[in-house]
């Protein structure tokens, strides 16, 4: 299956996306945020909470004071040297009121060295997990695409682990643990294994570890590598990315705009955070997943395909700029046009094929129908099956399975089973369609795909002219206007001053292939 896309137009689209990304990257590399600094603490090995339940990375960065002068790395390293203690011990002492963050010029050179060493150690741990993944894949095998991606969302990590195993036994390739409502608005990462959540389970490092172990245990039984996912997006993107890197998550939801549009997080904050979080994801070999599917829940699906395409191009440009190679850029899109609309299936097919063709090397992620499904679970199941057909016929890489109770509740154990069984059946039964059918030149499907691409390029031109911050403020994405100075978390953004030190950036930034040239 292949569309007759205008090469000139696609090249224009990629160039525009790079041009749009450039000013964002300029802003990002010039700033830091509270969560970026907390990430330094986490990667230095700081974990746990104080007696009020405040995570120690927050205790440290709060101690740093507003403006985050110079960043956390040096003061923390200095304190380590002065107290001859580990970062964790310093944090605990600080929490107990027994310490302050040093600013001792005498030990500065030594501190820089310590910071650099701690960073290299963290980097080694991350790279080791990456290597472990490669080993396990070699040992247990990698599933065919589309990968079957399911979510668990009980609120209780132990039930989640059990249901993740059930799903894997049934055939799931990727398991995502959905977060509890509103976690993305917390300016800290909760701690420990959790058993209470609404609409999902808290993303914590311990919870990651719990489900990771459950899946690792099962690989010999199911005979394939099982992937684990969680969400970076929110107010703690880089911290969660760090947790994910340490606990060997395989994919992470990481969108450059999701927090802005869907959680009213400040745009400047998000653009800084996504950059560093993506750098970590990239280093960890984690596939990022972007969230363009969400646009179609607040805008009409059949009118907004071009916003999805434009956004995937921008998300890709920003991911490349953060050092993520294309095989780790899982751009998102969705089967989300009203099923009662005449021609819907053809239009979905066209968009899915367009995304596939635009990004041949990306593990694109296809999201299921959600908004227009109803409590008629039979109808939802059938629509989901059609989504599976389009997914395999257009060669999607990651298929987030549609659940028949999408409009009712977070998936029951058996709901997920039905979804997996349907996907397995349809993928096998329809796989040869991809080589069997081709778009009729000038037919409705090809025209639709070409039209969406043309509209996307037109939108990219406007965004490029206006600049990304203004485009978002105008509500051009997801019909949701977000001003540059609005939203949560802006107070946590600070300029990287001249004395700013971040040994991770020193380690990783130079390796970037040069974002401006994409």
């Amino acid at each position, binding site marked *: 299956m292949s569309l007759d896309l205008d090469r000139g137009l696609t090249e224009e689209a990629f160039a525009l996306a790079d041009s749009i990304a450039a000013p964002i990257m300029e802003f990002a590399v010039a700033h830091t945020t509270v969560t970026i600094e907390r990430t330094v603490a986490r990667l230095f090995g700081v974990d746990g909470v104080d007696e009020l339940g405040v995570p120690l990375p927050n205790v440290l960065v709060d101690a740093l004071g507003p403006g985050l002068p110079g960043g956390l790395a040096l003061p923390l390293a200095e304190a380590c040297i002065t107290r001859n203690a580990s970062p964790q011990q310093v944090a605990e002492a600080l929490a107990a009121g027994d310490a302050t963050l040093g600013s001792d010029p005498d030990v500065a050179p030594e501190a820089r060295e310590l910071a650099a060493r701690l960073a290299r150690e963290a980097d080694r741990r991350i790279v080791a997990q990456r290597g472990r993944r490669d080993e396990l894949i070699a040992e247990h095998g990698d599933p065919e695409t589309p990968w079957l991606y399911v979510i668990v969302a009980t609120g209780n990590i132990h039930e989640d682990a059990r249901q993740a195993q*059930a799903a894997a036994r*049934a055939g799931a390739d990727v398991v995502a643990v959905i977060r509890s*409502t509103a976690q993305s608005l917390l300016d800290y990462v909760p701690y420990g294994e959790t058993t209470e959540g609404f609409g999902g389970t808290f993303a914590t490092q311990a919870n990651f570890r719990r489900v990771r172990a459950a899946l690792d245990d099962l690989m010999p039984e199911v005979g394939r590598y099982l992937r684990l996912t969680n969400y970076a997006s929110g107010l703690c993107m880089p911290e969660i990315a760090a947790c994910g890197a340490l606990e060997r998550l395989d994919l992470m939801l990481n969108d450059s705009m999701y927090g802005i549009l869907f959680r009213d997080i400040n745009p400047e904050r998000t653009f800084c955070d996504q950059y560093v979080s993506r750098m970590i994801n990239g280093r960890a070999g984690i596939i990022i997943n972007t969230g363009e599917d969400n646009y179609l829940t607040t805008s009409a699906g059949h009118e907004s395909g071009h916003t999805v395409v434009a956004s995937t191009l921008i998300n890709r440009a920003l991911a490349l700029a953060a050092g993520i190679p294309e095989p780790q850029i899982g751009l998102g899109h969705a089967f989300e046009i009203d099923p009662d609309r005449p021609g819907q299936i053809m239009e979905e097919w066209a968009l899915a094929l367009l995304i596939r063709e635009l990004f041949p090397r990306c593990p694109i992620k296809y999201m299921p129908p959600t908004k227009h499904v109803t409590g008629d679970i039979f109808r939802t199941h059938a629509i989901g099956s059609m989504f599976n057909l389009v997914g395999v016929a257009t060669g999607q890489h990651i298929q987030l399975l549609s659940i028949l109770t999408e*409009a009712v509740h977070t998936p029951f154990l*058996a709901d997920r089973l039905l979804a997996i069984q349907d996907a397995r059946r349809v993928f096998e039964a329809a796989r040869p369609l991809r080589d069997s059918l081709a778009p009729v030149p000038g037919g409705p499907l090809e025209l639709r795909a070409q039209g969406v691409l043309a509209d996307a390029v037109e939108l990219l031109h406007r965004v490029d002219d206006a600049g990304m911050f203004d485009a978002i403020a105008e509500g051009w994405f997801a019909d949701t206007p977000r001003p540059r100075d609005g939203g949560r978390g802006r107070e946590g953004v600070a300029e990287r001053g001249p004395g700013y030190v971040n040994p991770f950036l020193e380690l990783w930034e130079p390796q970037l292939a040069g974002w401006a040239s994409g």
Partner: protein
Amino acid sequence: MAEIVPYGDTAGDGMVQLSFTLPVPADGRAREIGLEFLRRNGLREPQIVHIGAADREMAFFVAYAKAAHGVDPEAVQGSEVEAPALGFTEVNALIERELGRKIVVVGAAIETDAHTVGIDAIMNMKGFAGDYGLERYPWIEAVNLGAQVPCERLLREAQERSADAILVSQVVTQKQVHARQLTKLVDLLEAEGVRDRYLLVCGGPRLSNTFAKELGYDAGFGPGSTPSTVAGWIAQELIARGRPV
């Protein structure tokens, strides 16, 4: 009127379809366990028509059975909100004629809930399924506060704007979080002694009018509600309550 029973193949057969998962292996004993489960729950002539393994110790069942009891529709109380079937123009005309001033409405998705598409559908210009939203009504002043609004803030805004009605959306229902959050708002209004000042309305895909009333709301709107129905009901209710101008 007499009791009615479900209609499957023919009148009076009482057939219902069920599916459920029991924590037992999907082995040779599963069918009888499933049947016994159905019988213990009062279902007659149960048939298990499918058993699938949902995990090693989990069996998924699809079943048909006859309901043991019918229901007398006449004896059932409660219904969806009964609003006059008025359109945009009529509602505005009604407000102008009967109240002679704008109705002030404040709305939000409260507490942890970030789902705004429902409340937006009712309040924003664009509306829902071709029916204009409240913002477009010249005789309604509609203020939509958006997502994850704490109850305290919603009340403050309502007070500052001397609202006539408070509109609350709740979409996430897992572990009854919606019931808790909706109750919190009622408690707050009562604690402040202002419950009677507002028409208190909630909506969401898992809400019903009856349930809303149980929680202390004046009305609850379920899936597929349209702005004009909501507007019509509010106008009618304010007029009926003879609210001073």
